[in-house]
């Protein structure tokens, strides 16, 4: 290895030595700036090798002071000339503003983005309805294959995880309920608790959260990546409507699957609770099932089954809408995917509260 880049300065001559290359330049640039006097000649005679960075440093000095360069062969002179030609000031990033203004702007941007996002979502819902109407009038354009695929991805593949989650939740409700009710000597009422809360609320709500995390995010990421790769534009130009080929199959399959998954989740939670009751409270399965039938009104099932497709619609809408909003770069895909999940879960919970008030007021309690 040869010597690192160095210089010495005497009698108005700047002698460079060593390797004037990116790898060996070290802090030469800073030391050169600390140099007080202006050189008249730059001597490259002792330099072993030079690359564009070395040539740039030489050019930078030559630019500011009128100097003569000696000790360089024709190739190196040409390199320095080329670098001189390429000396154009350049902005590295777009301009940024002072912190205070930036904070204000970010708050404003976030507010208007939230409003836009809600308005956009409503608009997207409208577009989906129009697309659905198109399908209803031309049923032959319906894409069975895409739909079947989504059924598998959104539904069948989610069975295991939703089942496990619901089973555990059933056990937790039974256990916590029994502990509290035991204080009143009323632990058998844990059965009422399990039956009603799973069918009415938790089955569908937990499933919605799971589907939003599993499928809503996947919709956003898939559609977002397709938009980045211009696949969506390519579809449009071929005459395939992205609404029919991509969005409706996802939305329809989620709407159809949410009630099924929600009901499945409630049943598994009831089974989990039943096993706990059998082991801990000595309630045999036959008695447990009988009590469930007695204490859970039919309306509880309807409440769950009515809410589920609405939640499914919301989740798929948020996922597809955010995915179709992706523009520009890969980071955007990540941001939009996160946004789709957060938005979906938030809206599901808001709507769940609305439903709770509504069903109570029509007497389904």
């Amino acid at each position, binding site marked *: 290895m040869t010597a690192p880049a160095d210089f010495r300065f005497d009698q108005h001559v700047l002698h460079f030595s060593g390797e004037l290359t990116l790898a060996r330049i070290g802090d030469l640039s800073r030391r050169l700036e600390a140099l007080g006097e202006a050189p008249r000649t730059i001597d490259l005679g002792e330099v072993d*090798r030079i690359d564009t960075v070395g040539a740039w440093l030489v050019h930078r000095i030559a630019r500011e002071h009128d100097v003569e360069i000696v000790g360089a*062969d024709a190739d190196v002179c040409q390199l320095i000339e080329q670098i001189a030609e390429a000396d154009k000031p350049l902005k590295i990033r777009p301009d940024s503003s002072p912190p205070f203004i930036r904070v204000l702007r970010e708050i404003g941007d976030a507010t208007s983005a939230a409003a836009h996002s809600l308005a956009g979502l409503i608009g997207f819902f409208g577009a989906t309805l129009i697309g659905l109407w198109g399908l209803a009038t031309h049923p032959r354009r319906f894409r069975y294959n895409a739909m079947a695929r989504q059924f598998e991805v959104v539904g069948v593949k989610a069975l295991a995880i939703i089942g496990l989650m619901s089973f555990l939740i059933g056990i937790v409700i039974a256990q916590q309920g029994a502990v509290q009710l035991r204080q009143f000597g009323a632990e058998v009422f844990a059965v009422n608790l399990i039956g009603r809360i799973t069918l009415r609320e938790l089955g569908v709500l937990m499933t919605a959260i799971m589907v939003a995390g599993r499928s809503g995010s996947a919709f956003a990421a898939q559609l977002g990546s397709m938009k980045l790769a211009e696949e969506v534009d390519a579809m449009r130009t071929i005459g395939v409507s992205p609404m029919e080929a991509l969005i409706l199959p996802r939305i329809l399959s989620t709407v159809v699957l949410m009630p099924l998954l929600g009901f499945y989740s409630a049943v598994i939670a009831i089974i989990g609770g039943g096993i706990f009751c059998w082991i801990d409270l000595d309630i045999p399965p036959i008695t447990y099932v009988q009590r469930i039938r007695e204490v859970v009104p039919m309306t509880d099932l309807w409440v769950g089954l009515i809410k589920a497709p609405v939640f499914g619609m919301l989740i798929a809408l948020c996922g597809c809408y955010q995915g179709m909003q992706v523009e*520009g770069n890969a980071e955007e895909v990540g941001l939009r995917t996160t946004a789709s999940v957060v938005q979906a879960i938030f809206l599901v919970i808001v709507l769940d509260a609305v439903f709770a008030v509504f069903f109570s007021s029509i007497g389904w309690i």
Partner: protein
Amino acid sequence: MARLNTADDETVIHVEGLRNAFGEQVVHDGLDLDVKRGEILGVVGGSGTGKSVLMRSIIGLQPPQAGVVEVFGEPMIGREDHEAQQVRRRWGVLFQGGALFSTLTVAENVQVPIREYYRQLDDQLLDEIAAYKVAMSGLPPEAGPKYPSELSGGMKKRAGLARALALDPQLLFLDEPTAGLDPISAAAFDELIRSLQRTLGLTVFLITHDLDTLHAICDRVAVLADKRVIAVGTIPELLALDHPWIQEYFNGPRGRVAAEAAERAAVKETGE
């Protein structure tokens, strides 16, 4: 006397007995290739003959099933990452699609390799380096603070070239740099690569389909067919061979037009 920072070895890339396969499909079998210091080697072959895969195996992104790959005399296969780093900082790669980092501006893209390898450089010098690299790649100064999604295809290629040149490499890999460019931009790109190669003393591994590029700037051309390099040489040398694909490639209607254009250019140059 100062001289350019070029490679010392006579043979910069040495490939021997390379075999690549994806499942059943064998892409290369017994492929040999040598690239000499300071030359621009054009690599041609039909679509899907494995030009990109060859480049990926040389730069270590595609571990081959058998064979020897040496770059700057160092074996590249089965090396630990930190050993390969020493060689990696001596080459620059321009991928087929540009492969710019989409969350960084053009100028920041150029700075990424420098920041990665030379942390001690001060920010001012880094910005200056980015500025002249961007200018050398033929981009206007307005392109510096732009994000890749705001660039046209040709500008992306140039920005990719600027990033490939960031570390002042001795060896440059270019995968179809002029594909998708209009003829004027493509010719300017050829000229740019030629002049960079001359001033920096680069060795260039250039995959291309562009017959004009081959005539204008390549010192030698390697022809990929039948899973190996069937011939390497200057275009007249290749034309002397009796291989049907080579004859069709260079003597087809497009090949002849490109050859005539190159001849006219050569006459003009000597006439001046």
